[in-house]
């Protein structure tokens, strides 16, 4: 494809693409995000492609391999788009209705769940060549048994407002053409159109109320303004895609599913702050994201959307990829910058001020924004800051993408308006807790966030409310726990993660974390004393007030919130030597319920420790001394005859 030299050429190219695709009246979108791929989506997509070629349907039916649709629990997902729901129906680049369906607009396509390659033929015959529906692949509500046809009717999607994620289902991330037909690069066209000087772009972002989606929640407009005001010729724009929180995969899904959206946000940011160079810092463990970003960069250079004189304007901007090395602390901005600089050795967080907006990469002013923050920019420019500000609460505007995981029915990525309550998110969108168990707590904000109990379920999700409750928005982790989760164990899990990931530069984080972990170990072993509770608070206070970076400052959060809301559980660990959830191994023992046991012998084979002995047709004997409490016997028992207490 040749380079585009003006806004007119961009518009013409877009029309060309739409015209060329006109013959195609149906599309089969196969989600090939990481979750669906792991469930076999690539084989499904290949089968569709094979059948479409074999049946000579390639002229009018398109297989679209897309990024994550969010409903990972039901993967592999296939959406058959009916004509009319396709994004091509927008008329201009600047058309604010040029939005993909899958949320607020459009009828949405037919949604098929847990599709296998052998279902492809039936789907093609029934729903693509005819108007039928393949009943057995429709989503079925696990509680009511009700079946849903369209994507938008499924409760999981119906309660969301998918401003950013909605694009994913309609775009093949490897095709810049798809992004263009969905109205892509319209925001860039607008700022380059001559009527929007950089100051106005920043103003619009300020009006939108957008705040940093990586965790801090700093107002994005102010950050841009700060960076722009620093004197000097050289500035950098850095996209932070070092998403390291366990249980978080929204940044990855946007980069994998719609890399151009982030790129467009970066180019607009570069225009606003006056940068000529930028970096996308991608986590090393995300090979697919790296690949999609590299492809997107290549296309953008080829089309003249990156490089010198973008679309014939005065704006020049280059972007490079920087690959992380698998260190959580690199998501922290100053550590990230030193990691890009590379030659300084291992990354080092440093005290602030000066903030990176004044002294950043190689000592120059640097704007660092999270993937989701940058992804929100193009639509804010296209539709105006006021449009964005109309969603959300007083202090938190727009939508937030959460990774809803753990003990919840509908695991996946959900995008909801700021201010939605935890209850709506977990029970309406997430479908509640599986197996009829009881909700116990939800952990928000990743390993540096806090655990909130059932009493807090009506808390609205907004930066301030979460922080008052002792947690954080973070980058959107949302881990649901039921009564089988031990809160001491969970606190210990998160703390051991941050201790492991501490870079060791400052003493409060390096030593404080380690000491807190040693204390938590005493609870797990039932050897804690009353005074240890206080000691935990003291250590936490020191870490919070004197650590160099957010990793150390926030690390005590999981311990503090579990102490605040689940003190009784801590107490029962040392007052009664009991772990109520039956998790902490030193405090539990296994027994066999002779009534329930059928002497099938499955547990005998499963036990590696040799703790179970027995002969045919007799209830096995369990040797408590040899038992490692690994739970293997319990996993294989079909009669719930292994009891934990």
């Amino acid at each position: 494809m040749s380079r585009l030299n003006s806004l007119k050429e961009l518009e013409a190219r877009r029309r060309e693409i739409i015209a060329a695709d006109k013959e195609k009246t149906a599309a089969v979108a196969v989600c090939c995000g990481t979750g669906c791929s792991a469930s076999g989506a690539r084989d499904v997509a290949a089968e569709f492609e094979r059948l479409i070629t074999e049946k000579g349907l390639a002229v009018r039916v398109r297989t679209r391999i897309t990024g994550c649709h969010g409903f990972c629990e039901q993967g592999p997902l296939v959406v058959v788009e009916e004509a009319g729901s396709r994004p091509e129906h927008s008329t201009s680049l600047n058309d604010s209705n040029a939005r993909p369906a899958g949320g607020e607009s459009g009828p949405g396509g037919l949604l098929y769940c847990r599709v296998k390659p052998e279902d492809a033929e039936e789907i093609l015959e029934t729903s693509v060549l005819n108007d039928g529906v393949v009943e057995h692949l429709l989503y079925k509500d696990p509680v009511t048994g009700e079946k849903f046809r369209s994507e938008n009717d499924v409760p999981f999607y119906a309660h969301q407002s998918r401003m950013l994620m909605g694009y994913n289902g309609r775009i093949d991330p490897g095709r810049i053409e798809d992004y263009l037909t969905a109205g892509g690069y319209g925001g860039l066209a607008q700022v380059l159109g001559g009527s929007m000087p950089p100051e106005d772009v920043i103003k619009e972002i300020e009006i939108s109320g957008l705040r940093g989606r990586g965790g801090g929640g700093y107002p994005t407009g102010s950050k841009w303004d700060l960076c722009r005001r620093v004197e000097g010729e050289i500035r950098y724009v850095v996209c932070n895609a070092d998403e390291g929180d366990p249980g978080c995969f929204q940044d990855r899904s946007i980069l994998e599913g719609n890399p151009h959206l982030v790129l467009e946000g970066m180019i607009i940011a570069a225009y606003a702050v006056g940068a000529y160079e930028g970096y996308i810092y991608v986590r090393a463990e995300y090979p697919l994201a790296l690949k999609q970003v590299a492809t997107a960069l290549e296309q953008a250079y080829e089309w003249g959307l990156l490089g010198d004189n973008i679309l014939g304007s005065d704006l020049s901007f280059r972007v490079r990829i920087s690959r992380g090395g698998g260190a959580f602390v690199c998501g922290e901005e100053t550590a990230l910058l030193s990691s890009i600089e590379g030659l300084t050795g291992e990354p080092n967080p440093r005290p602030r001020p000066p903030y990176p907006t004044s002294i950043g990469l190689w000592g120059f002013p640097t704007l660092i924004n999270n993937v989701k923050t940058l992804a929100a920019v193009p639509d804010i420019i296209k539709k105006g800051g006021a449009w964005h500000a109309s969603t959300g609460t007083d202090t938190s505007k727009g939508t937030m993408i959460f990774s809803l995981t753990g003990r919840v029915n509908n695991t996946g990525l959900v995008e909801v308006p700021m201010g939605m309550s935890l209850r709506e998110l977990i029970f309406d969108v997430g479908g509640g807790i599986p197996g009829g168990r009881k909700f116990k707590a939800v952990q928000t904000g990743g390993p540096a966030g806090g655990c909130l109990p059932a009493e807090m379920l009506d808390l609205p999700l907004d930066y301030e409310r979460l922080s008052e409750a002792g947690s954080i928005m973070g980058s959107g982790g949302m881990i649901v726990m039921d009564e089988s989760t031990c809160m001491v164990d969970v606190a210990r899990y998160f703390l051991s993660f941050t201790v492991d990931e501490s870079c060791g530069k400052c003493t409060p984080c390096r030593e404080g974390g380690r000491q807190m972990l040693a204390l938590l170990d005493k609870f797990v072993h039932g050897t804690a004393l009353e005074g240890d509770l206080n000691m935990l608070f003291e250590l936490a206070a020191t870490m919070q007030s004197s650590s160099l970076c957010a990793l150390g400052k926030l690390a005590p959060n999981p311990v503090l919130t579990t102490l605040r809301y689940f003190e009784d559980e801590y107490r029962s660990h040392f007052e009664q030597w009991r772990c109520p959830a039956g998790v902490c191994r030193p405090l539990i023992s296994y027994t066999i319920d002779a009534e329930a046991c059928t002497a099938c012998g499955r547990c005998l084979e499963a036990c590696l420790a040799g703790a179970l002995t027995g002969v045919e047709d007799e209830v096995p004997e369990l040797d408590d001394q040899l038992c490692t409490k690994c739970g293997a016997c319990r996993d294989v028992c079909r009669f719930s005859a292994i009891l934990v207490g």
Partner: protein
Amino acid sequence: MKEQVEQIIDRHSHAEGRVDLVAILHEVNSTQRYLSREALEMIAQKLAVPLSRLYSMAAFYRSFNLEPRGDHEVHICLGTACHVRGGERIFDRLSERLGIGSGETTSDRKFTINRVNCVGACALGPLVVIDGRYYGRLDPLKAERLLEEYYEQA
């Protein structure tokens, strides 16, 4: 090896004397299965960087190995979602079965196991990734059987 390492260094050396050191280490680590002392010395010499600094980076970042990895790389996900669904028990079982800890390689060089913090496929947890392939909804016994299949192949 010398030529290969030199090519890698050239590929990641940009204008204005900027060198993407992490990228160099990544590529050497993946083409040679680990960062050998010889390779690190070569990089240090060519870029005039102290060897100690390279060693500190190689030791700091999880992605790098200072010992050769086994034929099959097994990553056991211990992200939060996998943790609350029993990922730890899977790790324990595989670790006991192979007789090695995280980051270690069996003496026959067949398997290397690693604990990892979330591979981002939480809906399928608990899961393990073997040679880049994801296996979801496991329990300790299923994971062990999976390993046995790989053993038979190897």
